[in-house]
């Protein structure tokens, strides 16, 4: 027999706190403004930007993107597991997200170090000014993301603290780091 509750459509809900969504949309607009300025400047001296862009390794950009996509996947699994009260699985996925974030962090620092060693610093040319600005501001969001994930782990650790809304809010922030990187990757590594 079909359970009546299962046949009813699931009510719509805002994942996490609405305030976090306001912040996400604000951040998305701010980054869009940065991106538009970058594209406009790029069109004014395309050869210079392309020459400098050739010094970036597309494979490294792809690797960073895959790592962050996987971290988004694991934090989404964390949310779902917490919703189903499988807190052990949720905690495992939260730690997996932290690990993937750390892999991104180390890889990004190594990429910066390699570029600086090759002689491409913040003031080398306009492309590298944008490259360091966009990746550094994204990196700052990543560092905040570690704090946010720490709150998520803190929530999951003790039965007395587990707030599904807080866990969803933390996940929403982490996904924002992912989708902003997807755009940065397209603009710095792929576009011609």
């Amino acid at each position, binding site marked *: 027999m079909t359970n009546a509750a299962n046949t009813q459509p699931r009510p719509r809900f805002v994942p996490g706190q609405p305030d976090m969504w306001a912040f996400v949309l604000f951040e998305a607009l701010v980054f869009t403004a940065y991106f*538009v300025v970058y594209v406009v400047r790029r069109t004014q001296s395309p050869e210079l930007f392309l020459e400098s862009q050739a010094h970036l390794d597309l494979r490294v950009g792809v690797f960073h993107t895959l790592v962050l996509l996987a971290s988004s996947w694991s934090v*989404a*699994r964390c949310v779902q597991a917490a919703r189903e009260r499988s807190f052990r699985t949720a905690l495992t996925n939260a730690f997996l997200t932290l690990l993937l974030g750390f892999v991104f962090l180390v890889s990004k620092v190594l990429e910066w170090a390699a570029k600086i060693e090759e002689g491409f610093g913040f003031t080398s040319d306009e492309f590298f000014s944008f490259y360091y600005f966009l990746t550094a501001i994204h990196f700052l969001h990543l560092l905040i993301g570690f704090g946010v994930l720490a709150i998520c782990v803190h929530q999951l650790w003790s039965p007395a603290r587990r707030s599904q809304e807080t866990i969803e809010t933390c996940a*929403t922030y982490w996904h924002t780091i992912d989708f902003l990187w997807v755009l940065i*990757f397209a603009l710095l590594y792929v576009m*011609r």
Partner: protein
Amino acid sequence: MNAGFEKRLSVVLLALSAITLSQLGVGSLEGHAALRPNATITSSAIVIALIKVRIILREFMEVRHAPVLLCRLTDSWVVLAGVGLLGSYFVGMAIARG
């Protein structure tokens, strides 16, 4: 964990990863071709990135289960970003050509 939801998340991750890996093909452009502006590659890169962003919003961030207002707001931003990026690219290129 709910097997259906878990499978859906994994399929989404695989699709996003496959799209990302397919962009490695741009790296095969060598020499002169790599150093020339290419409107097709640029517009494809922007459109593909926005499609990926929308998938992340709807699937990983669960906007597909959210109230209509949040769906509309996130979709509006994706459209705005697309118009802003593609518009600034093509208008900028036209101005640069004089």
